[in-house]
């Protein structure tokens, strides 16, 4: 009689390509990344950093109501997106705007959603950072945690039925794996043999809940086998490792029609969101350590620079351009008028029902009769 021990004597090893100084670890297998792709990846990682910084500050200044940064997780955001095909359907959690950025969402489009103005594709229906784009195959962000996991299995199933050369890719944090939907999503994807890549960003914290209080397993990667799912643990702060792992996982998912699980180890440098002050529950020097010494952007920059593909001059030009563009985008988005009143009643259903038509008419009449009760510039 032998019990399987609650934990293995050795933790599952972590796949990495670059060491902390940005040098390729010898005798390693990885998907090579040429100059053009590498430079684009780096530029986008740096842009994401600038975007996060500026939008965060805008919230602090009271110009937008809420924001959520991806600081510390730039490699996961950009490298995973770079490894996918544009036909792959992404079901994000909420800390993956870099995937949308990679696919072509502009800084202006990000700003419009945060300000909920008339140009927002979301028509002002959702709070900031709940981006979505049908055109870019990125599903609109939904707040309840982990609901996207079984939904991704459903999307994968539909791609399978239509025999498309594409997979579903879905993201989840370490905390989200505690949800019942994590179990349901992985179990189903395995049973249905759906082409889904599950990417777990294990960043150590779920608001103030540390991973030691979230689960007692060796992270998330060990859970894959429990569902019959091929899994890998990867250094999430190593852009090349993330790129290789996601590239390979995607191939497996599509050609073998099976789900794959990737656990990307990283650290949430920022607060959970602008509603959080993480210094209340974790040491300030822990945050500093990860921000300075384990920074994924700096690490990848070293490799790109060592190859002669990037310079200090390129760096300052990129950052100042990105900053300028963002500040302009915010100024423009702020000035842009808000959605007209009719958008309150649209899209509840495919076709507006009679009761809403009546209510819309009633409200229009009220606004016309009592304009002083409504803010200036409020339009119907």
């Amino acid at each position: 009689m032998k019990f399987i021990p609650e934990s293995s004597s050795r933790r599952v090893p972590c796949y990495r390509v670059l060491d902390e100084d940005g040098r390729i670890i010898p005798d390693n297998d990885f998907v090579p990344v040429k100059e053009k792709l590498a430079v684009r990846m780096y530029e986008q990682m740096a842009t994401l950093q600038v975007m996060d910084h500026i939008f965060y500050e805008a919230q602090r200044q009271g110009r937008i109501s809420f924001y959520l940064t991806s600081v510390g997780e730039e490699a996961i955001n950009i490298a995973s997106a770079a490894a996918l095909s544009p036909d792959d359907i992404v079901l994000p959690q909420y800390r993956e705007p870099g995937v949308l950025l990679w696919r072509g969402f502009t800084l202006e489009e990000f700003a419009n959603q945060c300000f909920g103005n008339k140009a927002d594709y979301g028509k002002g229906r959702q709070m900031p950072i709940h981006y979505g784009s049908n055109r870019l195959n990125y599903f609109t962000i939904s707040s309840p945690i982990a609901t996207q996991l079984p939904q991704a299995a459903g999307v994968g199933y539909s791609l399978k039925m239509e025999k498309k050369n594409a997979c579903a890719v879905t993201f989840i944090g370490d905390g989200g794996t505690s949800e019942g939907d994590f179990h349901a999503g992985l179990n189903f994807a395995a049973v249905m043999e759906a082409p889904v890549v599950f990417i777990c960003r294990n960043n150590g914290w779920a608001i103030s809940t540390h991973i030691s209080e979230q689960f007692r397993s060796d992270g998330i990667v060990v859970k894959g086998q429990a569902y019959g799912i091929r899994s890998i643990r990867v250094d999430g702060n190593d852009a090349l490792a993330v790129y290789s792992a996601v590239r390979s996982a995607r191939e497996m998912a599509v050609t073998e029609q099976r789900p794959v699980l990737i656990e990307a180890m990283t650290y949430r440098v920022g607060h959970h969101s602008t509603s959080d002050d993480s210094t209340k529950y974790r040491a300030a020097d822990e945050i500093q350590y990860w921000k300075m010494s384990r920074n994924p952007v700096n690490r990848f920059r070293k490799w790109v620079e060592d190859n002669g593909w990037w310079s200090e001059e390129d760096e300052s030009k990129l950052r100042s351009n990105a900053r300028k563009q963002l500040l302009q985008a915010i100024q423009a988005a702020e000035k842009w008028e808000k959605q007209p009143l009719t958008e309150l009643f649209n899209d509840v259903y495919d076709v507006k029902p009679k009761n809403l038509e009546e209510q819309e008419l009633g409200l229009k009449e009220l606004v016309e009769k009592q304009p002083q009760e409504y803010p200036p510039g409020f339009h119907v």
Partner: protein
Amino acid sequence: MLGILRQRAIDGGLAASTLRRTRSALVSARSYAAGAKEMTVRDALNSAIDEEMSADPKVFVMGEEVGQYQGAYKITKGLLEKYGPERVYDTPITEAGFTGIGVGAAYAGLKPVVEFMTFNFSMQAIDHIINSAAKSNYMSAGQINVPIVFRGPNGAAAGVGAQHSQCYAAWYASVPGLKVLAPYSAEDARGLLKAAIRDPDPVVFLENELLYGESFPISEEALDSSFCLPIGKAKIEREGKDVTIVTFSKMVGFALKAAEKLAEEGISAEVINLRSIRPLDRATINASVRKTSRLVTVEEGFPQHGVCAEICASVVEESFSYLDAPVERIAGADVPMPYAANLERLALPQIEDIIRAAKRACYRSK
């Protein structure tokens, strides 16, 4: 399944009058021979799903026991053999799982028909129904619509206790973004389910286990594969002039029986079958009450915040000056459903309760 005829003795007068109303409710210039065709609700639902799957390859069925077992209540009988395991999918026991999968598949353009073994179990998946399915079209500003149907038995059955007997009509019908339907007859079942499957919005389709085996006359038109009933339109099952009885699902049958008994005592009751809980056909209800001046609403579900409460509010708001008596609400008892047969009977509306309420409204009894 087309062509399956159940020859069962049924009250000839009621069948013929129902058939006449069925014909007049449909837009058609043709006339039909008085019906010999009958169909159970089970066969009506099965044929509806079969025809919609045949017409549209994006439609697929998912749920526990729907495939090999032929359906927990045999509603999906024969579909696995006909369409294969990819389109008739037997799921593991995770309501949250298969509901989420259905929503995801709908997001991606398929048209899932998700079966809950009973809507009591839908509570384990209700976040997906409400926060994802119902609200996605609005939150995504029309980019993500969810053409999904959630169906299954709802409300009380017989001797199944508290966790298998709750009616969820009021819960789901309170949510904007959902459509909620409740068929009564075989024609309702066919027409409403076909409409639900074709609808681009998420639909909650509340069946009744005890009605599955019941046979109803069915017209040629209703048997046609293009047959569809409009969502949001109630049906006047029986015309009357003294009191309006509004209800849905199994209680429609009880209301019709009550109306017969009332007719013997000189009270002419108009019976309205809601068919659609959301959108609620307030126009038909109010037009009827303005004619009769009296309202009795009936449901099996819990009384507080029930469907009947909404109907009463609508009538009091819109037809107050037409009312000659206070509105009457008949609902299930405000207790979790007991198991013992005698207690269960006391916890649910009976025909006598409806008769008494109608008479109260007519000032004929206390």
